[in-house]
């Protein structure tokens, strides 16, 4: 349950605004903060080739209300466009494709600004567009983009730290790659609600202990109503104390001990009442395995704590300042700041609210400590927003880093060596998968699409595509490794060749949906984006994510 700390303000008598009503179904996913981020986003699409997949992506960003989009496309609308692209019609024939697309996409949402380029014939029109435009939040380009334009984009991306998204859809296959400028931390990861329960039953603080003691001190003489309405937190704390008394002061730790403890809790339920059992004790027993567990540092946060910075502290975002403060908290207390939410459980209203307040008060206290430390780290002249600290403390266990720079000894992203590494790993996995009847790796699809882009030619046949892949990988691979790859690659290349570098609308619409989801995650800094390449196989209807 999303728990919202708020004062009981007098009700607003008029309902939601027109805009809130229009965006209602998405505000429930990313809230006003995510919407504000979307509305200030300025997105560039550099379109080429069959030209549909990027347009389908834009559609899914314009509808939820990004601030502005620009389409750069050198093509004039031809007959084939009308059979694959929904945002062109017969009246567009022969006109600049960018102009027609911007106009028909713009109709989708009057609140979004749209523009297009090139408006005149000139050299380096993309370069001058980039110079003249307000800074872009993210740039997408689609294959087959020409080399000169790609270099221009890469240059811009490097200079302005702009996320760059490459998209390629041909025939039944597609992939897209997200290149983020440096390590990308996410705090608001939206974990599953059930995963977020953090009750601290093995390290209760004095107020919680006192609450449980008061509730359970005469547990056996409580009447059936009171006994049947003890919140399970109090029940578990009470019986954990009892367990400790008979187990040398230790908590149940092994699976066997926990199941024994669970039985102890089950047996404590009254069955001589009219219901023949007690719901709150059922809830308590059901919660044992998950909540009676010692604290361990989650892997995502561990990565944050151990992150080796290359830039000086003054240049880091406040995320890293708060992360340092949380790390200091962890070093001092051996635990994380308490998130403070209490799952619903059978209890009387008053008792439940009292319990909620105990957790909330502790969470506020922890967050205040983190805020104080963060402010000290930041020094004078830098603001630390208490709301950002609160969000971090609430989500600390689920904080995640994407696109970690210099992670371990792997070959650099985008390099030939990286491709070879992933290929070897995938081919090895396939040998296991083949025996266990698991699905095969989609890496050959990625390679074949890269090969096709390398040929850059609609008439490339199977052999040419496979040869292009070979040159992409260079000849460091043994013939055995190639032997494994060749058959799989050959089949994919054959299917790819029949498409002649053309897009299928469904594959592009599906890919455009996935890319739009990822763009939304990156712009709003909510949910967890892919890291960093996603391949879709439209023949088997499957995806796979690679780190290349």
């Amino acid at each position, binding site marked *: 349950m999303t728990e919202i700390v708020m004062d*009981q303000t007098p009700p607003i008598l008029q309902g939601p605004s027109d805009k809130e009503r*229009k965006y*209602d179904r998405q505000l429930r996913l990313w809230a006003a903060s995510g919407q504000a981020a979307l509305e200030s986003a300025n997105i560039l699409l550099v379109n080429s080739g069959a030209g549909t997949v990027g347009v*389908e992506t834009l559609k899914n960003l314009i509808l939820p209300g990004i601030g502005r989009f620009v389409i750069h496309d050198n093509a004039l609308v031809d007959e*084939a466009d009308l059979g694959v692209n929904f945002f062109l019609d017969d009246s567009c024939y022969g006109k600049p494709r960018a102009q027609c697309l911007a106009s028909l996409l713009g109709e989708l949402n009057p609140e979004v600004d749209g523009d297009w380029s090139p408006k005149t014939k000139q050299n380096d029109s993309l370069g001058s567009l980039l110079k003249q435009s307000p800074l872009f939040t993210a740039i997408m380009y689609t294959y087959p983009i020409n080399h000169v334009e790609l270099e221009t984009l890469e240059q811009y991306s490097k200079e302005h730290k702009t996320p760059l998204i490459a998209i390629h859809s041909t*025939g039944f296959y597609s992939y897209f790659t997200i290149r983020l400028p440096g390590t990308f931390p996410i705090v608001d990861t939206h974990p599953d609600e059930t995963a977020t329960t953090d009750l601290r039953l093995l390290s209760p603080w004095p107020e919680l202990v006192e609450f449980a003691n008061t509730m359970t001190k005469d547990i056996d003489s409580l009447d059936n109503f009171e006994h049947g309405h003890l919140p399970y937190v109090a029940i578990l704390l009470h019986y954990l104390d009892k367990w400790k008394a008979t187990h040398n002061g230790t908590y149940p730790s092994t699976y066997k001990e926990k199941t024994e403890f669970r039985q102890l809790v089950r047996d404590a339920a009254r069955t001589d009442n009219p219901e023949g059992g007690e719901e709150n004790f059922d809830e308590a027993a059901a919660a044992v395995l998950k909540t009676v567990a010692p604290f361990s540092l989650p892997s995502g946060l561990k990565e944050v704590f151990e992150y080796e910075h290359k830039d000086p502290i003054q240049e880091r975002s406040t995320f890293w300042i708060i992360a340092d403060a949380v790390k200091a908290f962890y070093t001092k207390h051996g635990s994380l700041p308490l998130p403070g939410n209490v799952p619903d459980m059978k*209890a009387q*209203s008053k008792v439940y609210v009292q319990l909620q307040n105990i957790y909330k008060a502790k969470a506020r206290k922890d967050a205040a400590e983190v805020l104080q430390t963060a402010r000290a780290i930041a020094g004078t002249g830098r603001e630390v927003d208490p709301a950002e600290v609160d969000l971090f403390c609430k989500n600390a266990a689920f904080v995640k880093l994407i696109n970690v720079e210099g992670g371990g000894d792997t070959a650099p992203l985008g390099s030939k060596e990286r491709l070879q590494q992933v290929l070897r790993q995938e081919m090895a996995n396939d040998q296991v998968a083949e025996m266990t009847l698991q699905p095969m790796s989609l890496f050959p699809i990625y390679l074949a699409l890269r090969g096709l882009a390398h040929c850059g030619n609609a008439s490339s046949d199977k052999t040419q595509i496979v040869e292009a892949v070979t040159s992409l990988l260079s000849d460091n691979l043994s013939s055995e490794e190639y032997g494994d790859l060749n058959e799989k690659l050959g089949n994919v290349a054959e299917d790819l060749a029949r498409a002649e570098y053309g897009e299928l609308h469904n594959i592009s619409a*599906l890919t455009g949906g996935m890319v739009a989801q990822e763009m939304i995650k990156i712009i709003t800094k909510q949910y967890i984006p892919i890291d960093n390449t996603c391949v879709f196989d*439209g023949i088997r209807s499957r995806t796979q994510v690679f780190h290349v």
Partner: protein
Amino acid sequence: MSSPEVLPDSEAKRWKYLNNVRTRPGAFVDPEEFDGSTVVENMNKIKILVIGAGGLGCEILKNLALSGFKDISVIDMDTIDISNLNRQFLFRHADVGKFKAEVAAKFVERRVKGVKITPYNCKIQDFDEDFYQQFQIVVCGLDSIEARRWINATLVNMASCENPDSMKPLIDGGTEGFKGQARVILPTMGSCIECQLDMHAPRAAVPLCTLASIPRQPEHCIEWAHVIAWDKEKPFPQLDKDDPEHITWLYQKALERAKEFNISGVTYSLTQGVVKNIIPAIAATNSVIAAACCNEALKIASSCAPFLGTPGEGEPNYMMYSGNDSIYTYTFKHEQKEDCPVCGMTARVLKVNPKWTLEELIESFATLPEAQLKKPSVRAEGKTLYMQLPPNLEEQTRPNLEKTLEQLGLTEGTELAVTDPAFVGVVFNFSLKFA
């Protein structure tokens, strides 16, 4: 509006990308099934039905029109609401209040030359088998599980082994937030929607006593206003969940109650969400799922690549998609269930307590994941135990509701035949097991 004469040459140019793939063999086609020379002609003749013209429906219509389907029909009884505009991209602000099916059909016909789309502004239950018989493929983009079960039962009932034309592939999509699923059902030849019902278990209801006396969550206060306060005070003759005045009334009631119990978090938006059971929805996810469905439709219609639901050992029929944490798909085979009430051969085992009254049994059908029947009528081996309709039969059988299963003479292994007005013509068979 008459479309200008399209020259065959220009047709070939227009559909170049699609035809390159659907008329030429790829690496994975079944040579027995695939004949590239007849694909275009065959697909031109196919009649395909789209159920739902909402978030998924708009996408499906666009995708089918650009996949070479020429004769499309669409059913939707709903009218356009402002909250549809963030994803149902065939509608504009000026269309609010008009029929979805009609506006969507006109839009796609106008945009994609040479496609005919027939809209039906009504419920799927308004049509009989004769109507559904005319289509070769059905694509479903619905948010109601009930409607899905109805069309599933109807199509499975229509399928007969002797007549291959009666076998109509049902392609179904659904989304929630960043997640969704696409599945293909070949009636009687594989798992059907009823076989997969437990994958869509209803959310557990909050016990009435919690609402009535010990609320703890803002949702409890809202449900209290919705089910208890509204009934008691009847501020308007009939609750209209789309009327902001009604929602405001519930919101204020819930807020008062929350205040009384010191519960925070009741908002207008939450009130609306709980009362209407709103599922978050975005364009991007609809785009993924609708396209996954239409990709299967193209493959089924042309045989230009293997499709989900292909009969055979281990052949997948279900794709689950999740975009919350990275992107994850799980494409697998959901097995047909022998005791499926719609496509199975044997009665499904139902664990019951012999001390239950018939009323308790009947109520349990609503929440049981594999039944989910809200108004069941029950017969046991020829004897009528309880009938919801007609009123005189209901009155005659009502006294049975208070009797226990034992008193009614039901024993282990007794077979119950259950019907529900939501699924006319379908009998759900259960075999009792005492626990």
